[in-house]
């Protein structure tokens, strides 16, 4: 018998017991549904994480007093030691910028300045950032109109600013902001540039920035002291040259900073090099842990479903002993009978898989509608996985009943009442 006629035979046989077949597949349906739903949501989450981080400029190295503490596990840190670490300087940034593997290295500092008002308009939750020429590269900004901060701006501590699209829209509306002034934190700045919209990250807009020369910032804002010195001081953002591997650039930066700080070979770094890669890896670590847990649960459900299939196939073999005998009497070989029953089990499991995939994708879509920042994604491989799992369950749990059917003695089977 060829594959197609076997498949048709299975479908006909299963349709003869519609409700029994459906109930049998329920375990598979639930198992595959769980897998598909969870995978779709996790995949959506992973994509979201990647997408959000890509707006930052994903290969920028953030050089700060300490490493970001990300991922599971407790960290014991000596904050007093960290607080006392030397501050970064503009000179550090200039030296790093000269490294052959570094495209741009700029000092960076910032603070929240709350609501800014202008002619009856206001923009909330604004962020004042001090940076230098090249800060558009490290911060992944694109200047929509005007220009970014220049070397001259920094050297002359000019009162100029580049504003984010949110500020431009809310404070200037239809007006062209270029050449206008903006009062921020007690000083009046000329707007020399407007940035393109970057969008939100995890629901937080990034377009609420007012970027000024770092020298201007430091003139009016003393470096923070006490525990604020850990995160509030000057940091450096460094962007590797295109084509340079991030790890190589990080090694160069580390070596140069150790040299500049005169660290001996047996002394630990008194600074931290941070990348978005670290956060992504940590978040993906969390999602992959969730993944394993969920796949474990789904696997149990699939095993239960498989046992259900095995059970009903054994019943089916007993019920159809006579049919098996007749088929053997007209020339069916053991393997013909084996394949026939195996095919039935697999079709049953695949049917469950199909329903499970459809329901699973449906649930994932529903969750995406209900939860705002979560977009479920069901790439082809989740569907392939769903079908693969159910086919495997069908084969694994179908083999024993099929084997049993194939080994029946034709004359005993044909006489069976």
């Amino acid at each position, binding site marked *: *018998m*060829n594959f197609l*006629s076997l498949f048709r035979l299975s479908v*006909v*046989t299963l349709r*003869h017991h519609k409700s029994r077949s459906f109930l049998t597949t329920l375990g598979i349906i639930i198992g595959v549904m769980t897998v598909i739903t969870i995978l779709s949501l996790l995949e959506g989450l992973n994509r979201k994480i990647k997408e959000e981080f890509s707006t930052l400029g994903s290969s920028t190295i953030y050089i700060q007093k300490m490493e970001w503490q990300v991922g599971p596990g407790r960290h014991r840190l000596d904050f007093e030691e960290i607080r006392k670490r030397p501050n970064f300087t503009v000179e550090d940034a200039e030296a790093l910028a000269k490294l052959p593997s570094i495209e741009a290295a700029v000092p960076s500092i910032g603070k929240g300045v709350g609501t800014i008002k202008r002619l009856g308009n206001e923009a909330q939750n604004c962020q004042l950032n001090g940076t230098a020429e090249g800060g558009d590269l490290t911060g992944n900004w694109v200047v929509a109109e005007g220009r970014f901060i220049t070397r001259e701006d920094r050297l002359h501590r000019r009162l100029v600013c580049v504003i984010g699209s949110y500020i431009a829209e809310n404070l200037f509306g239809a007006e062209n902001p270029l050449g206008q002034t903006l009062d921020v934190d007690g000083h009046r700045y000329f707007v020399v540039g407007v940035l393109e919209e970057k969008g939100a990250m995890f629901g937080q807009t990034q377009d609420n920035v007012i970027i000024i020369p770092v020298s201007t910032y430091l003139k009016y804002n003393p470096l923070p002291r006490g525990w604020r010195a850990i995160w509030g001081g000057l940091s450096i953002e460094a962007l590797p040259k295109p084509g340079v591997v991030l790890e190589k650039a990080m090694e160069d930066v580390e070596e140069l900073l150790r040299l500049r700080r005169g660290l001996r070979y047996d002394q630990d770094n008194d600074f931290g090099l941070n990348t978005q890669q670290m956060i992504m890896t940590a978040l993906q670590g969390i999602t992959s842990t969730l993944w394993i847990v969920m796949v474990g649960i789904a696997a149990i459900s699939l095993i239960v479903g498989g046992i259900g299939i095995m059970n009903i196939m054994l019943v089916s073999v007993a019920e159809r002993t*006579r*049919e098996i*005998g*007749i*088929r*053997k*009497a*007209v*020339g*069916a*070989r*053991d*393997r*013909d009978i084996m394949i026939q029953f195996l095919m039935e089990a697999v079709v049953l499991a695949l049917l469950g898989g199909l329903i499970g995939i459809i329901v699973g994708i449906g649930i994932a879509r529903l969750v995406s509608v209900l939860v705002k920042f979560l977009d479920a994604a069901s790439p082809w491989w989740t569907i392939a996985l769903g079908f693969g799992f159910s086919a495997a369950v069908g084969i694994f749990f179908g083999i024993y009943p099929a084997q049993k059917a194939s080994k029946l*003695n*034709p*004359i005993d089977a*044909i006489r069976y009442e």
Partner: protein
Amino acid sequence: MIRLVGLSKVYAGGHVAVEALAGINLEINEGEYVAIMGPSGSGKSTLMHILGCLDVPTSGEYFLKNQEISQYDTDQLASVRNREVGFVFQQYNLLPRLTAAQNVELPLLYSSVPIDPRKEIVAEMLAKVGLGDRGHHRPNELSGGESQRVAIARALANDPAILLADEPTGNLDTKTEEEIMALLDELNEQGRTVIVVTHDDTVAKHARRTLHLLDGRIV
């Protein structure tokens, strides 16, 4: 065509072993029409099942077309059942969920005949047994005689040299019995070897040679 040498079959049931066949020696030539008779328990059905390769002997030799069948494995026996012998049962043994045509098609499916010749053969076989127009009916829509005709058509599908019929008219009335036996006569006249198991003299009279079985021996 068929040669049995010292064939015996012992059923080891419970404490006592039952000897269904006790050393059968038999030769049947091509084109013969043989009736096997005997009271119930004489071993005639067991003999038939062994001839039809549905069962295997405990000892002795069975040659079919000079091949020693008793040495065959299950796959080879299946192939013999499929191509060399056609079996007709008293109970018809049609698959109830398939149509008459699909039942006739069954042996062809297992011998992997492609679909076009398969349909042709099925139509030809149904016409041969006089059921050319009943192919789409299911067994429960057919009379006993019609069912047995379908079973005969199925047995003939792969054009076997031997047709074995185990009490083929046991469930039929006299008139239908005549029709079925006439069909078997006709098949024998066309050159096919026909072997019929029966306890009915009128059936046995159709055959040209009658064997009597008693307690597992030919008498």
